[in-house]
């Protein structure tokens, strides 16, 4: 035996997808290794296939109506529960972010910001309707009001940088307004996404409301764009060529595609990131008329 043989062999984990409330391996059987900065193998993660994505959309569709029809108060509490569970697993996430290339300090900052982002949108859940909706003073005897409704089943494409906070920054507003989500995490640092799936599983998020994929963006974007049962797509900091692929989805079934651009430092700017204007692309406005009279 060589001298490098360890006394105890560590148990290496393969992080799985979070799909329909369960943790399946990718149906494709494909995995990729994750190494730390010293090139030690840390874990494996699943390389989601297009079929995994379609399954995730199916799960999201099944879950969306009941998620949207829960009270806003309850949705807020579930988002807050996610914050609680994330806060409780600080060490694990800090390590995961360091593996992804962060310094310990950067990891700590990102983690705290992610928790706070969930808290911020937990708070919005039972208030945004009052900001985004309104009563309209029509010039006739009608009672007329406009209310926000969720877009439906949404795809989120997280940026490579800020592997935890980037993902959470897209998920929190999407879930807040009652959408069901299929999210693709950072491609460069997938560990945070995989771990976050484990947080969601214990956060009272109903099965199928949130589905997390790790995988190859170039492979999956065309499928996101072409899927007819996706109502909206939200991304951040994608390259122009990637944005174009998704935009073509609008030409296919009029799915709403919104690209956020976060400049340097923007992701830590709570004034920018916690505003209810970020909810606008994730909702539809419904206007209801009824006559007034005896």
């Amino acid at each position, binding site marked *: 035996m060589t001298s490098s043989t360890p006394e105890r062999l560590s148990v290496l984990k393969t992080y799985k997808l979070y799909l329909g409330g369960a943790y399946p391996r990718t149906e494709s059987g494909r995995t990729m290794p994750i190494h730390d900065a010293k090139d030690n193998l840390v874990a494996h993660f699943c390389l989601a296939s297009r079929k995994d994505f379609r399954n995730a959309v199916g799960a999201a569709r099944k879950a969306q109506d009941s998620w949207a029809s829960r009270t806003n108060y309850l949705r807020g509490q579930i988002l807050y529960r996610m914050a609680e569970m994330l806060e409780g697993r600080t060490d694990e996430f800090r390590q995961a972010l360091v593996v992804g290339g962060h310094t310990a300090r950067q990891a700590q900052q990102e983690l705290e910001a992610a928790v706070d982002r969930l808290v911020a949108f937990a708070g919005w859940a039972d208030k945004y309707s009052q*900001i985004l909706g*309104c009563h*309209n*003073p*029509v*010039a*006739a005897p*009608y009672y*007329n009001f*406009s209310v926000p*409704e969720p877009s439906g089943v949404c795809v989120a494409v997280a940026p490579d940088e800020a592997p935890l906070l980037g993902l959470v920054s897209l998920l929190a507003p999407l879930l807040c307004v009652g959408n069901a989500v299929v999210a693709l995490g950072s491609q460069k640092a997938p560990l945070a996404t995989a771990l976050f799936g484990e947080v969601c599983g214990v956060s009272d998020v109903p099965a199928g409301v949130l589905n997390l994929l790790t995988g190859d963006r170039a492979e999956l974007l065309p499928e996101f764009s072409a899927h007819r049962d996706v*109502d909206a797509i939200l991304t951040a900091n994608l390259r*122009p*060529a990637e*944005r*174009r692929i998704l*935009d*073509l989805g*609008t*030409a*296919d*079934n*009029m799915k*709403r595609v919104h690209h956020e651009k976060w400049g340097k430092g923007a992701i830590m700017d709570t004034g920018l990131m916690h*505003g*209810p*204007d970020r909810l*606008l692309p994730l909702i*539809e*406005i*419904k*206007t*209801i*008329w*009824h*006559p007034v009279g005896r």
Partner: protein
Amino acid sequence: MTPKTLNIEAPALDFGEHWEYAPAPEGTKVEIAARYGAFINGEFVKGHGRKRLTTVNPATEETLSEVLIANPKDIDDAVAAARAALPKWKRLKPQERAKYLFRIARRIQERARELAVLETLDNGKPIKESRDVDIPEAAKHFFYHAGWADKLDYVFPGRKARPVGVCAQIIPWNFPFLMAAWKIAPAIACGNTVVLKPAETTPLTALRLAEIFQEVGLPPGVVNIVPGDGTTGAALAAHPGCQKLAFTGSTAVGKELARVNAGTSKRLTLELGGKSPHIIFNDASLDAAVEGVVQGIFFNQGHVCCAGSRLFVQEDVLPEVQQLLRARLHNLRVGDPLDKNTDLGAINSASQLATIQHYLKLGVAEGASLQQIKTKLPKKGYWCAPTWFEGVQPAHVIAREEIFGPVLAVMSFRTPEEALTRANNTPYGLAAGIWSDKGARIFDIAAKLKAGVVWCNTYNRFDATSPFGGYKQSGFGREGGRHGLLPYLELS
């Protein structure tokens, strides 16, 4: 429920051939030039395009005018003028900007009669509608949005609002003047400048609006109007000098415009087609409901994107609704759009008439039962009698595709769940109607219908303060109200 006794075989107003309405024509003294060019940088110009389109009165097939088909060079000129006008316009003291819109609103009101007649001549819609709906609503749009110009920082809490830039706007032929107002008023109130392309068959009132812009001294280039056909629209939609594209029209064209602009940072608002459901529950006031159905599908000859073209009636009241509908339609008057008693005017164009007739044939071939009122249609012009189909199956093309004409598909349902499922079973989601006397049911159904506008115990109501726009393949973005400003603003 005990069925009510009906005696609709002898409607009160049926005097047979013995007592015809006397004609009540609106005066038609409206000046129309033999030729029109474009309105660019505050001037009417001949334009570079060599080709012209002929705009006709669809009720008589008489030529009204020959109008420029603006070519890409004209579009370049118009976009350049809008670009040049932008810095001053957006920096103008907001209340001064508002006052231009107030002035425009007033001039529209003052010239309302002329505009209504011109609209009816060019479009074929009844004068009753252009006089009472199109023109007054257009004036209201300018009046409403005028007041926003100096209040933009109140549009969204905690955010500063800035204009988007140069807006390309393409509008359809069904409400030519009103759509121009819907597009231009919010855009310029928010400090943007505009290049607007009116529809190929109805360019005249938009050009008349340009005259009003001159009258009120609107700074040159703030609004430019480029008439033309599909090639003009394509050049404008793809122009890289515009930061925003707002389009109202068919879903097919909307998708093409989305494709052309994919990967650009141009902002899009698309207001597209519909196949809107109209649901009558057995507890509804049936007389009012039938009136609403008639308003919903026969208003503007059914050339309405949110027309209530699919009628779902609860099974136990279906016979009664059908009888009432038949009786009501018997009293609809089809004919000379300039006659103040006309309910249904002319179909806007020969090609649209052909489309409608194609669907009528298809409906019969599919096995639905075609019902039409017997009415004398004028010999010249494009006409379609009010039509409804009974025995329609959900899979029938006439129950799925937008016909854009006075054609109603009548179907029945048993439970509210069935009504909802079938109402939502469409790629469209523009509007919907509900008729019921039960408040709780109305709001339950209204919340579950996937549509941008839900009319409860009414239909086809519009207002400048009320956001309008669709879900799903009926497009996105809203027009009117506070929400209608957002597509024309950058928030920061």
